C-alpha cells in the first residue's frame, strides 16, 4: 500500500497522540515527541513500526506528537492516518 498524500489523525489532548504521515521518503522515518519519552519512547515507536509493517507501508515520514496515549490509541490513530493517506477522496 502507498500513501499518496499527507494525512493526519488524532488530537493534542492528554492521553491522545497526533499522527502525521508524509509520503515520498526512501524508507520509513519516525519523528516522535512525547511527554513520556523517557519511559515509553521505545514502546511508542515499536507500535508505530508494527502498524506500518502490518499495512506494508515503506516510504513515509511519521511525525507523532504524543500526550501519553496507550498502545491501542496509538494503533487506532495510525490506522486512521494510513486510511486517509491512501484514499483519493
Amino acid at each position, binding site marked *: 500500500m502507498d500513501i499518496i498524500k499527507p494525512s493526519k489523525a488524532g488530537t493534542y489532548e492528554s*492521553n491522545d497522540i497526533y499522527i502525521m504521515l508524509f509520503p515520498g521518503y526512501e524508507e520509513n522515518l519516525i519523528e516522535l515527541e512525547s511527554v*513520556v519519552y*523517557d*519511559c*515509553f519512547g521505545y514502546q511508542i515507536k515499536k507500535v508505530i513500526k508494527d502498524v506500518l509493517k502490518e499495512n506494508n507501508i515503506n516510504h513515509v515520514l511519521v511525525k507523532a506528537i504524543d*500526550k*501519553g496515549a496507550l498502545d491501542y490509541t496509538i494503533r487506532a490513530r495510525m490506522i486512521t492516518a494510513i486510511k486517509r493517506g491512501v484514499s483519493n477522496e
Partner: protein
Amino acid sequence: MQIDGYKKNYKMYSYSKVIKDQVILKPTKKNNSLNKLRKNISNLLDELTIKDGSVISFHHHMRNGDYVLNMVMEEIAKRNVKDLTLFASSIFPCHEPLVKLIKEGVVTQIYSAYISGPVAEAISQGLMKKPVVMHTHGGRPRIIESSEIKIDVAFIAAPSCDYRGNINGSLGKNACGAIGYAVTDAWFAKNTVAITDNFVISVDKPHIEGKYIDYIIKVDSIGEASKIVSGTTKITRNPIGLKIARLAAEVIKYSGYFKNGFSFQTGAGGISLAVAHYLKEIMKEENVKGSFASGGITGYLVDMLKEGLFERLYDVQCFDLDAVQSIRENEAHIPISASKYANINDDCIVNDLDYVILGATEIDLDFNVNVTTSSTGEIMGGSGGHSDTAYGSKVTIIVSQLFNARIPVIKEHVICKTTPGETVDVLVTERGIAINPRRRDLIERFRQTNLPIMTIQELKKISDNLVGIPEEVEFTNKIVGIVEYRDGTIIDLLYKRG
C-alpha cells in the same frame, strides 16, 4: 558515609525507632524595644551585617504570590555575601530569581519542605553546591528547636504589624490568614524581621507576639494575595477523579472510625477536595458530626464548619481566600503553628487525626509513597505535611488515578521514598482499592462491604497490562538532595539524572 554539607551524626530512618529529641529549646526572647522600625531592607542590612555562611529563613504563606523572599535576597546579594543557607518553608515558581543566586554561589544550601518550579529544576540539574535538605512541615520546627540549625535572620512577611511587632496574618490588603510556619522561626532566630505592607497602631490578636520581633520594615507590598490560592482548589470535574473520591468517602464510611467526633484532613488537590464533598453528603445522610478538620484549609472545609459538620478547624496555612476570611471572622477557625500541627516533639494535632486524604506521584508494592519527585526523578514538590499526617492519622488514604497520560502510579519501587509504607493504609484508584496488609482490621471490615477491594499486586497488574512497564530512569551518583523523615533521620537520597 559522610555527605558533604550535611550533619555528620545523621541516622537512617527506621519505623520501629522513630526518634524524639531529648533537648528542646524553649522560647525566652523578650524584645520590648519601641524602636524597631527601620527605613528599608538596605538600611537594616547595614546594621545587621549578614556574614558568609549565615542562615536566612522565610515562610511561604503568600505562596506563589510572595514578594518578600525575592526582595530580601536581592538586597543581600548586592552585599557580596556568599555561601548562605536558605531555610525557606516552601519555594514556588515565583522564586525564580533564586536560580541566579544559586549559580553565583550566594545561596549554596536550601532547607525546605516543598520546592517547585525553576529552583527545583536547578537543584535537579545539580547546580547547588550542597545537597538540598527536604524536611517535613513538622520537621521544620523540630530542626529549629533542637538547634540543629540556628537561624541568623528570620524574615517574616507580615500582612499586618504594629510598632511593637505584633503580627496578625488575617488583616490587611495582603491578608494570607494563618502564618503557622513563621512562628518557630520568630521564637528562635537571632534576629527576627517583620516585613509589612500594613503598619497599624495596634494588633489585638497577634499570631506572633511583638516580643519575638526585633525589626520592622514597611514596604509597598509583601505580595499578591490573589496568588496564595494553591494550585487546584476546585473540585475535579474529571469523572475518573470523582469516582475515586466517591470510593474514598465510602472507605471512610465503612472504616470503623466514622462516628460522632471523628477528625479529618484533606489536601487542596482536585480529587482530595472532591472527597470532602462526598464525605459531606455521607455525614448528612448518616447524621454524623466531626470534631475537627485540620491542615491547609480551603473554602470547602470552611463551608462544612459553617454547616456545623465540624466543630473546629485547625489551620496552619490558608489555601484560598475563603479560608482567610473565615479565620479572620470565625472563632472556631483556629490558627496553629507548624509545631502544634506536626512537630514530633510537640503535642501535635496530626496525632489526633482519624483520617487523612493524600495524593501520590508514585506508590510501590510496600505502600511507600513518592510526592517529592516526578516519575522521571526531577524534584517537583516534597512532603509538606504528607509524612507527618500519614504517621499521625489512624487511617491514611491515598487517592490517585491508576495511571494518567500513560504514567502509572503503582511502581515496583518508588524513585523517592517520601512517606514510608508503614504509615500508609489504603490506596484508592478508579479500578479498585488496595489495603496495606498490615491493616488486617481494615481488610476484615471491608470484606463485608461491596467495595472493590483487591491487593496492590492485582491493581499493578491491571495497570501494567494497559500502560506497559516504563523503562527505568537512570541516575548518576551525585547527591542533589537529602529527604529527611519527620524525626530528622534520612529516609531517602535524591540523585542527579543520568
